[in-house]
């Protein structure tokens, strides 16, 4: 808890800068309005107006908070205006894709560690693929699936799975190889079979790497889902909220959707971190 005070200070500074920036960026509009109606604004009135515009260039923090409150608690959960509803649509696709992607990644990693040909064939491409902006294929996947009559959760989940697949694969291969020669020799001297070596040595020692890459993968899966919700026609999900907000100039809506997305990402990463702590403590690996 040593860091609480510094972190709070930084956060307070961010909010303060945000307010100043909101006043500055919205001032042109307010000044124009005042000039048009030929009124002279006092300092207090001027600031009050910059912070309470309907479509501000930069909404003030309390406006975003109000938008968030209204979106989360002010609507029925089933309503199309509810951020909980949109958030759930994004979250379900993210989780489905994340599950598919990480299971496939773990499976392929197991194959790669046990088969040399597979290792030499797949690994260079898997590593190289990390430098490729895969996210660019998102709109194409959505449209291709839509033309085949498949819409809804599945296409987004596939993008999310694709994005979470490679980090898990690379991390897990590294993890399954961390067992050092000494430990492998010990297993040999106990006459352990291949599967015993895998279940009792390789798999347990890969856990820290697995969890580290799962955290990266879940964040990537969320980004993938949100971008998958962008192409025209999408009407549900946080990505669609962002896009419609940008079409209609509803800045408060964009910021509110953004904060829900941030909260989702933070929640997912935190959840995996919590499972990681539990698992590692149970295995006696916690440091």
């Amino acid at each position, binding site marked *: 808890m040593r860091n609480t*005070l510094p972190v709070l200070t930084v956060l307070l500074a961010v909010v303060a800068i945000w307010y100043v920036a909101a006043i500055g960026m919205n001032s042109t509009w307010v000044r124009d309005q005042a000039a048009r109606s030929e009124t002279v604004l006092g300092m207090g009135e001027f600031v009050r107006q910059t912070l309470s515009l309907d479509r501000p260039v930069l909404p003030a923090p309390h406006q975003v908070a109000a938008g968030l409150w209204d979106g989360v608690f002010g609507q029925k959960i089933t309503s199309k205006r509810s951020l909980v509803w949109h958030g759930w649509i994004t979250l379900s696709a993210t989780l489905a894709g994340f599950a598919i992607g990480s299971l496939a990644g773990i499976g392929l990693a197991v194959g790669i560690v046990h088969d040399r040909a597979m290792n*030499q064939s797949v690994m260079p491409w898997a590593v*190289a693929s990390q*430098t490729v902006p895969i996210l*660019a294929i998102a*709109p*194409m996947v959505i449209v291709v699936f839509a033309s085949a009559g498949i819409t809804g959760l599945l296409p987004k989940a596939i993008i999310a799975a694709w994005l979470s697949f490679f980090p898990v694969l690379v991390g897990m291969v590294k993890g399954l190889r961390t067992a050092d020669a000494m430990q492998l020799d010990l297993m040999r001297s106990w006459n352990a079979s291949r599967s015993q070596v895998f279940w009792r040595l390789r798999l347990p020692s890969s856990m820290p790497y697995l969890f580290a890459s799962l*955290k990266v993968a879940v964040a990537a899966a969320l980004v993938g889902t949100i971008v998958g919700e962008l192409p025209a026609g999408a009407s549900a999900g946080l990505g669609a909220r962002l896009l419609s907000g940008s079409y209609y100039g509803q800045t408060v809506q964009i910021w509110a959707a953004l904060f829900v997305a941030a909260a989702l990402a*933070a929640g997912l990463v935190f959840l995996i971190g919590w499972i990681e702590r539990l698992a590692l403590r149970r295995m006696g690996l916690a440091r």
Partner: protein
Amino acid sequence: MSALPIIAVWLGGWALNAWLARFDTRLSRFLVALIFGITLLILWEMTVRAYAIPTVILPAPSQIAASFTQNTAILWGDFVQTILKGALSGWVLGAAAAIATAIAIDRSPFLQRGLLPVGNFVAALPIVGIAPILVMWFGFDWQSKAAVVVVMVFFPILVNMVAGLAATDQMQRDQMATWAAPYWQSLAKMRLPAAMPFLFNGLKITTTLALIGAIVAEFFGSPTRGMGFRISTAVGRLDLPLVWAEILVAAIAGSLFYGIVALIEKKVTFWHPSQRKQRG
């Protein structure tokens, strides 16, 4: 019936690789990876032809290559707009800002303890989401894309640079102190060089982020050129070969970008253990 040749090619490629993999030399490793890639391409081409898969679902590699050679002018224009103007300028600005910030907060442990958790937290967030806001602020042209890239690359580089500046140990600092080196001298001669491996780690991670930021930001509005614009409009016209050609450009650009940064890293941090020639 048409599945038979496809399976035959797959088994043939696999058997060749299984045989080659036993040699485990530098050349054989390269060949194995190459053969795997080529086999996948052939299988792709064969599957598309054998089952007459419509182009709007999956174009064959040959169609993509044809589209690539026909549209070089368009692709080059998009490359300049998105990669050079949007991603690269944003990446340079963001990296410079992050390095400057890291050095500025270097003397204040209080700010570091405050900024680092926040930076780590922000680095995990879906920052691409700010693209619509920045497009509203900076307009449709490349400036808004560069702004998105700046925000996306800032925090990962900042976190790495701060860790790098803390990478010297007490003994080395004491040594500088015994030579009566002032703060700036010990920064320039000891701590900045020691931070380079960390900095380049951050720079390499963010090359991909920069491309993603520049491409995705174009989905929210762009002039009538750029890779993101081309992808979304070509998808709308069901011109899938052009989309795949565009993705090919993105892949090449991403690999080149990463490769160039890795090459510079090799020159700058030649002394680091990870750069030594591996034996055996």
